[in-house]
């Protein structure tokens, strides 16, 4: 039997305890052990940003992190943003209103990156927005409406995200 370690993680506000293989990626743990498939994996080498989650409120690439490294941490995934399926998070709402997504595959990473940006930066300039998003690849939108969505979210939330 492979070696397993106990980890205890808070995921979207709920405590989770599991025995996992030390080599299990955090992205695979979230997706396949917890069924939180909203976090997507685009490259498994930390470039595309699709798998971005918040680890202790900081954006992190869940494909570059082992689950055991998240022991004791608090993780927020895209599923943890909206208070209910009927009430989108303001950043999600802005992406809907501004057509900030097409295929929806990079979207979770974009949303999480935006939440992290707006928590640091209540009123980012377009240059700030583009710089913040530059670690997240999108192949569908040419980033036009993503930048627009982030601007809209910033205007609407005014630093309270």
């Amino acid at each position: 039997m492979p070696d397993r370690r106990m980890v205890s993680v808070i995921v979207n506000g709920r405590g989770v305890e599991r025995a996992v293989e030390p080599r299990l990626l955090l992205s695979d743990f979230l997706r396949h052990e917890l069924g939180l498939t909203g976090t997507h994996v685009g490259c498994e080498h930390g470039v595309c940003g699709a798998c971005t989650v918040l680890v202790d409120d900081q954006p992190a690439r869940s494909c570059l992190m082992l689950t055991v490294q998240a022991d004791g941490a608090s993780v927020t995934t895209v599923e943890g943003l909206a208070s209910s399926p009927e009430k989108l998070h303001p950043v999600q709402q802005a992406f809907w209103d501004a057509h900030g997504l097409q295929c929806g595959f990079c979207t979770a990473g974009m949303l999480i990156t935006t939440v992290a940006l707006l928590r640091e930066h209540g009123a980012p300039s377009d240059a700030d927005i583009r710089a913040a998003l530059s670690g997240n690849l999108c192949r569908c939108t040419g980033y036009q409406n993503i930048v627009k969505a982030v601007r809209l979210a910033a205007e609407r939330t005014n630093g309270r995200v």
Partner: protein
Amino acid sequence: MAGFSATRRNEDPRLLLGMGTFVDDVEPAGVLHAAILRSPYGHARIRSIDVSQARAHPAVHAVYTASDLGEFNQPAPLVVPHPNLTHGRTQRPLAVDKVCFIGEAVAMVVADDRYVAEDAVDMIEVDWEPLPAVVDFRAAAAEGQALVHDDVPRNTAARVVQVVGRPEQAFAQAAHVFTEELFIERSCGSPIEARGVVAVFDARQRSLRMWDNTQAPLTIKNGLANMLGLPEFSVDVISPDVGGGFGTKIMMFYAEEVLVPWAAVQLGRPVKWTEDRREHFISANQERGQSHIARVAVDAEGQILAIEDVFVHDTGAYTPYGMVVPIITVTQLPGPYKVPNYRSEFTVVYTNTPCVSPYRGAGRPHACFVMERLIDRIARELHLEPNEVRRRNFVQPDEFPWDVGLPFQDGAPTMYDSGNYPAGLALAEETIDAAAFRAEQSAARKDGRYLGLGFAAYVEGTGIGPYEGAHVRVEPSGQVFAATGLTSQGQGHHTSFAQIVARELGCDPAHVTVVTGDTGRFNWGAGTYASRALVTAGNAFGLAAAAVREKVLRLAAELLEVSPGDLELRDGKAMVRGAPGRELSLGALATAANPIRYAYGKEASQAALRLVKPREGAVLSGGEEPGLEAQRFFAPERATWASGQHAAVIEVDPQTGDVRFLRYVVVHDCGTLINPTIVEGQIHGGVAQGIGGALYERLQFDDNGQLVNASFMDFLMPTAMEIPDIEVVHLETPSPLNPLGVKGVGEAGTIPVAALVAEAVEDALAPFNVRVREMPLSPARIRELLEQSV
């Protein structure tokens, strides 16, 4: 009936909430995981394979090599055969004896989880005999080159010559003849979601259900049924939410689309395979890669008399898609211009690189690059502005239908249906303020800044057949369900199609649920490719919804005791004009359309009691069918032709070779707009991919066929930092070829970008006399061009 408008997308809330269903999200109980052993060589013989160690691993369920597959390991079908494709070759699921490109599948492991499956792949021992590889396609057909396929002399799959008019005569009589040698590098679609397949075989029912992020699930379904000896009726393929396609995800068949269901049948367990990024780079299909020698004959005024274009097309290791890409290049090369005499000659060559099949643009960016480079050459030689040359050669608005004189990719004539190219170019010039640019440019040069203005014009054959279909049904809840056979990879089909249905039925598009890519829901059609979905399926939805509308009006007229002409459909109801309150909801009508005297739910059961009257004799007679539903098909007679003109102002830094966009303007005409926001989004994404192809993206193979930049770290796709604001202006010249008047838009944005960048870079660096003859233009390459020019 009201028109169409920008509407928020129906598919977005679930995607935003993380509740989409992508292939890797599908996790059937008891699923096993597959991993593929791929060739590490561009070209090598397989002396032997030893899988004993992998098979002995306690968590491994099966290891398959070509010999284990036996008769099942057949070459894939050649999807688009052509009489001139004399030496077409397609790949087998698993390589036998020899591999022809890195990434070619050699063995498959099925194990308890993906980690173990990958461990076991590393335990397979292959005794390889590396062979010399053919990588530079320009030399592939030369004497003495290694052979990709032993039975294909000179690595030549096809040589095709096509002639329109009398080019020889025109060249002999021309005032000027100019020649350009041009080169376009290999690139790839790179959707952010890689490929994936999940197959579940039910041994009791002998039925197969497969999730596959293909762009053509119906074709995969019917082919698989044949291969596995199952009735088509017992195989379902579902292409769920798909994370981008761009052409890469259509292939009949990728190895895994055959191997994974095979293993599921053999093992009686669900099997899943998810591609990783490195695998995607080396095993998924790629495109671009052409080398042209183009000659143009013009009169003294710059009017084009003839073009001769001789090119080599790199098809990679196999020809799964026949010659679709070079045929598109040939037929689209004249673009929006009148080319009365045209000779085209192309050679399709094999190389030891991954297979080539259409990637967004599909032969068109190459064609546009060649044509627009010729326009620029004419302009320079005759001391004209390039746009003046464009204007002198455009097909005029009163000259449609315009016949290019060659058969298009679908075999029908290449005949443009409608457009207004001079108006589009004028609009592009006006929007970017071309008139003021030269003053701005010379002022900037005084400050040591090099600005350039570039334009490019293109046409795009879209919306080809054979056909697509649609099914529309109103439920007693008033909700409308609509299904088609083709798929969505982000194009917003769940919204555009809903808008088309909603307009006919007079309801809110948000109340129309569209299902795509599920063969169990709709069983006929071809797939999403070639910018055809809106034209084919969109019109089928229009026809099916119109048929339902007619049923709604007939039934409502009967129940409300008025004539159908007195009714209007609005707000989800059939209303008697001028008689407020005399109305029936679509839901109530759906209930009444089912002649059963009960229904479920409060409103429906009341409607059933109130509206379903006892009837004498059979409740359905004379071919009547229950329900408010209809199925219709649309088969276009030939392609519709979208068009556009892009314009940009760039700045080139001669010190670093860096190119920056200061403005980017798109004038685009795709006929009737269903949802302008979605259309703009498609254009934005296309332009971004075009910018990638023009400045950054190049797959770099070494002499052995090894891809040396197989990661997102090294294959540079543009980020939010590289893509400028894109200003989109719409022209609407409806197509006369379909009821909605629509044309496709999926690929358009990508087509002219490389051509435009070439013109703009030359313009910016005019003081250095730089000539652009290739794509992409990396900063290092721009520096080299500057050094050569001095």
